């Protein structure tokens, strides 16, 4: 249990460094530290599938982020936005934080989730019937690829749409210019 708190505090410290450091490359590396800390956290929370996905996505995301930050001359941008706007945002964020802390008190105790106390919860049905319904010993797989397969289809659609968007944005020359080099 103490390991959870150590990892969470590590992630919070890495996030503070990522936000406050001046060098963009250091900030990107700190975000990578948060991601890998989160992956360890998922492993300790008994979610091995998420931990593996998180590591793969983390490596790819770091490559993308480093591609954006490396070999840019102007990676040192210091200072925040104008003073009044910053103060107003910080005050609003502080109020949101206090409100969220009040909500944290109403949540169930960590380690005693709501679904375990309710036999009619959907998760209980998945755990009890998942193997016999779908034939997958991993219940996460049976939900991901059988009970909620349309979710996965939508995820693939969103992913490919994002890839199409990124390709369209990054393409350096338009088709019109390729046909007519005078433009």
């Amino acid at each position, binding site marked *: 249990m103490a390991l959870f*708190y150590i990892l*969470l*505090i590590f*992630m*919070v410290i890495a*996030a503070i460094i*990522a*936000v406050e450091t001046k060098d*963009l490359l250091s*900030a*990107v590396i700190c*975000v990578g530290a*948060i991601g890998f800390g*989160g992956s360890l*956290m*998922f492993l300790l929370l*008994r*979610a*091995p599938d*998420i931990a593996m996905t998180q590591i793969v*996505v983390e490596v790819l*995301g770091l490559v993308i*982020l480093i591609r954006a*930050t490396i070999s840019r001359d102007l990676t040192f*941008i210091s200072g*925040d*936005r104008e003073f009044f706007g910053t103060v107003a*945002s*910080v005050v609003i*964020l502080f109020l*949101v*934080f206090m409100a969220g*802390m009040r909500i*944290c008190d109403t*949540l169930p105790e*960590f*380690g005693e*989730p709501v*679904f375990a106390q309710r036999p009619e919860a959907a*998760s209980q049905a998945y*755990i009890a019937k*998942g*193997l*016999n319904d779908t034939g997958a*010993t*991993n*219940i*996460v797989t049976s*939900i*991901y690829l059988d009970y*909620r397969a349309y*979710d996965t289809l939508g*995820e693939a659609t*969103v*992913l490919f749409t*994002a*890839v199409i*968007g*990124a390709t369209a*944005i990054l393409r350096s020359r338009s088709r019109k210019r390729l046909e007519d080099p005078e433009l």
Partner: protein
Amino acid sequence: MAYALCFLLFMIGLYCAVVKKNMVKIVLGIVIMEYAVNLFLIMLGYVKGGVAPIIERSQYDGATKAIASEFLNASVDPLPQALVLTSIVISLGSLALMISICIRTYAKYGTFDITEIRRLRG
């Protein structure tokens, strides 16, 4: 306490996305928020002393198709895990899109500073 630390992580990401004027810093803030939300959803389903939702061979009786009760009582919640799996993959796609917008803006304006990019106004 664990939820509060997770919420603090979210608020740090939100602060980064709202206050900073470097485009890549804003993207990093959004990424930190994604991590915090994913972690929070998984933590909501954690059972103290629980096991991963994977049934072992010894816990399944093939003849009666019955699953051992020690798995039924100790398994963590599989539903948020399946949905967070979707969320993590989508966050990679949105990260690629945001970073490509940043690279394109840098190529056009020569800076990541959003206060310098005046012509972006509609």
